């Protein structure tokens, strides 16, 4: 395991996501709480990055900014050459639909839709026909090993299976980047291991760029790179490369 400085990490790499001087603060009553202050760093294409840090360190905020579901107070975020901080809300939604796959801690599946329908949901935003949508959703479910659970409602699936459906939903549109916020936080050890292995496979075999926020060192160990964001010194970033 080697520790690299950010400047070294950026040199000569194929950068997919670039955060430049990004600041973000939240209002809590009358108080303004700074979360990120002047953060600059890059994420390379086909990287599997684990973001770690204590609660309140700003790792989820950073993930939200990268995914385009929150906007910075200052600075710019460029993903695949597109400065997403300049996009208006409607275009940002379209950009997310095309480029980002989400994996949430509590799966966030639609409880009234079957596994297949949940996976098919993001495809309804595309111009694909019903048949093709179904085929792609089936394929995504087979990639996460749930071909035999297509007609099950989320309530009929275990936590691990629900998270695998969520992963299938995240990859069905073939997005550029997958963002995962504590994807194993609600799972038992075995299910967590299965989910992380799927994510590893998506990164290794399909070249998906994955940014994962986690508290769990075992989960972070599946990433190619771990970054630790420390509360109180937001400009200071520790980067470790797993070899």
């Amino acid at each position, binding site marked *: 395991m080697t520790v690299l400085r950010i400047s070294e990490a950026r040199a000569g790499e194929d950068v997919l996501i670039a955060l430049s001087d990004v600041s973000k603060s939240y209002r809590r009553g009358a108080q303004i709480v700074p979360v990120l202050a002047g953060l600059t760093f890059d994420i390379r294409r086909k990287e599997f990055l684990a973001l770690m840090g204590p609660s309140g360190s700003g790792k989820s905020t950073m993930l939200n900014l990268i995914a385009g579901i929150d906007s910075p107070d200052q600075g710019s975020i460029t993903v695949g050459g597109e400065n997403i901080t300049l996009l208006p*809300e409607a275009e940002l939604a*379209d950009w997310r639909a095309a480029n980002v796959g989400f994996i949430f801690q509590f799966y966030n599946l*639609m409880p009234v839709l079957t596994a297949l329908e949940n996976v098919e*949901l993001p495809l*309804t935003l595309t111009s694909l026909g019903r048949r093709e949508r179904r085929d792609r959703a089936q394929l995504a479910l087979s990639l996460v090993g749930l071909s035999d659970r297509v007609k099950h409602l989320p309530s009929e699936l275990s936590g691990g299976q629900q998270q695998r459906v969520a992963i299938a939903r995240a990859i069905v549109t073939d997005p550029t980047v997958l963002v995962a916020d504590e994807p194993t936080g609600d799972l038992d050890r075995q299910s967590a291991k299965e989910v992380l292995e799927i994510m590893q496979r998506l990164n290794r075999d399909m070249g998906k760029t994955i940014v994962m926020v986690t508290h769990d060192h075992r989960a972070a160990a599946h990433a190619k790179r771990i970054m630790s964001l420390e509360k109180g010194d937001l400009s200071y970033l520790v980067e470790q490369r797993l070899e």
Partner: protein
Amino acid sequence: MSQWLTLVARNVLRHRLRTSLTLVGLIVAILAFGVLQTVVKTWYAGVDGAVPSRLLTRNAISFALPLPKSYQKRISAVEGVRRVTHMNWFGGIYKDSKNFFPQFAIDAASYLDMYPEILVPDEVRRAFLRERRGAIVGRKLARRYGFKPGDVIQLRGTIFPGNWEFVICGVFDGRDPKTDTSQLFFRWDYLNETLRVRSKAQADQVGLFAVDVVGLDSVADVSQAIDEVFRNSLAETLTETERAFQIGFVKQTEAILISIRVVSFVVIFIILAVMANTMAMTARERLREYATLKAIGFSPGYVARLILAESVLIASIGGAIGIGLTPPVAARLAELSATLFPTLIVSVNTVMLQALAALVVGILAALLPMRRAARVSIVDGLRALG
């Protein structure tokens, strides 16, 4: 079915108990609204059914006071008058005072000629003209009390003293559903001849003259001319169109009608509050789902339309069932109310008002939840508890 419709339909069925209770509330509200509107409309049925060329002449002081029968000849002589008939409100009691139904003493031949909306079979008409104590009863009244031709019934007089016996000659129907068939007509000459014996002061008196005018253009002139004939007499007259007479009659109960109308709208307002609460609760519970949808690329408008469609769908189902139940419930109410409401027919207008009320409830109930779900930031929505 599109994914969007699937989501809407399944969301409606998600909390079956909650949806069922909301539906029950909606059905009752739309039904109550329809029935109350129908009651108000029925109250005005006499106004709607008034024939424009028919005038009614009554005592100018009050229609409770009679006019001399001798006025009929002088009214007939007024230019523009085609024919005149007369009648008296009888106000008798059949067995018990709770058995109320309208009874009129009429000049049989001229009255039935002037009121073609009362359909009397020829043989019944002949029997009625033949039998001095004869009476004809409307279909609804006959059904209610089981009156049959040949029955002899007794009414106890309230305005005209004594017991009065009548022989039922037959049953009449209405030309259209609005015609009141809860009435009894008997012969004025029977009333008058009996009064000459029992209560001389009440004899040869008439409650109302009905006047058929030659042309619609002359209605106002004829009305004025009739009243002019009796100006400065002991019993001055007031002649007005049948419609104006009915409106005057209805106006006496206007406060009740306004109250009924207000109540019907209050019912809708209450169900709107209930429905809005249901939708607000629903949207609050699903805030994280809406945030998820927005995160994966769906627009705030898509999320808002999900809530609107769910609300409108529930309101439409409740409205449709409520509308469907209104005619049978109104009919049953008409039966139960004896002769108070001779007929309770749900009009197309009322059905449209009910449908509009259901739609408005569905839309208004969704407005605030839609706004909240569409405007909440994705980050805040994802933090919300499911």
